[in-house]
């Protein structure tokens, strides 16, 4: 069984955070696991689990990174940011007309559901609530479990 973790950008930001709460710690561990799976040769065959971020969100992050560089982060920090981005793949459409930030994630989840068991990973409680409401209201999005980074890390380790 192959899993696709569809990741909201807050998990990536948590991984780069110095905060010591569980979300930040587990985001680092979870992305580390995804990176390991991605670059381990066996994963090229098994594709047991993969992490995806929506292209739209990836673009938002890219703009932010350019902004950070302009404001002055170090080369080492650029490398760290890039390393985190490398842990996941981006996919889905770049729709400039998205009104709500969480909908690119649902579009991508729908796209991946044909070939993977989809799990949404999001630490932001407000977004999690909106996701649940949208999945309950609009059937075309489909329904998927929503994990925080701690649950996702545990799930990836145990499956």
């Amino acid at each position, binding site marked *: 069984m192959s899993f696709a973790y569809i990741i909201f*950008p807050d998990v990536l*930001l948590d991984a780069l955070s110095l905060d010591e709460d569980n979300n930040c710690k587990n985001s*680092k*561990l979870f992305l580390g696991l995804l990176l390991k799976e991605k670059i381990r040769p066996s994963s090229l065959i098994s594709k047991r689990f993969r992490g995806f971020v929506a292209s739209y969100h990836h673009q938002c992050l890219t703009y932010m990174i350019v902004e*950070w560089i302009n404001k002055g982060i170090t080369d080492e920090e650029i490398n760290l940011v890039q390393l985190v981005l490398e842990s996941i793949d981006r996919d889905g459409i770049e729709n400039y007309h998205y009104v709500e*930030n969480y909908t690119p994630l649902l579009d991508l989840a729908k796209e991946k559901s044909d070939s993977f068991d989809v799990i949404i990973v999001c630490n*932001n409680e407000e977004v999690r609530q909106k996701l649940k409401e949208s999945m309950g209201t609009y059937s075309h999005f489909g329904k998927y479990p929503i994990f925080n980074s701690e649950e996702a890390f545990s799930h990836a380790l145990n499956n």
Partner: protein
Amino acid sequence: MNNDCVCMTDNSNLNTWVEVIDVKSLKEEIINDNPQLKNFDGLVLKRIHKSNIAITYEKMEGGLAGYLEKNLSKSSNLPNFIKEARLKFC
């Protein structure tokens, strides 16, 4: 095997592994995705170009998590930028 992942040796231990990654440059990625940035401030792209054409990480003790913990600096600007960025995704 693609250009993103050239070589990996794995001892099946989450905490210690050796890897060599030839990472596609962030500059190239940014321009490919955002053609409008071709005319972006040259200084920015020059810095990206210099530091990200290829990155080799060896003996990344503690995996990505350990590497991030070790290398994120409290004295840097990044943590503040991360806090600002969170607000944009709420």
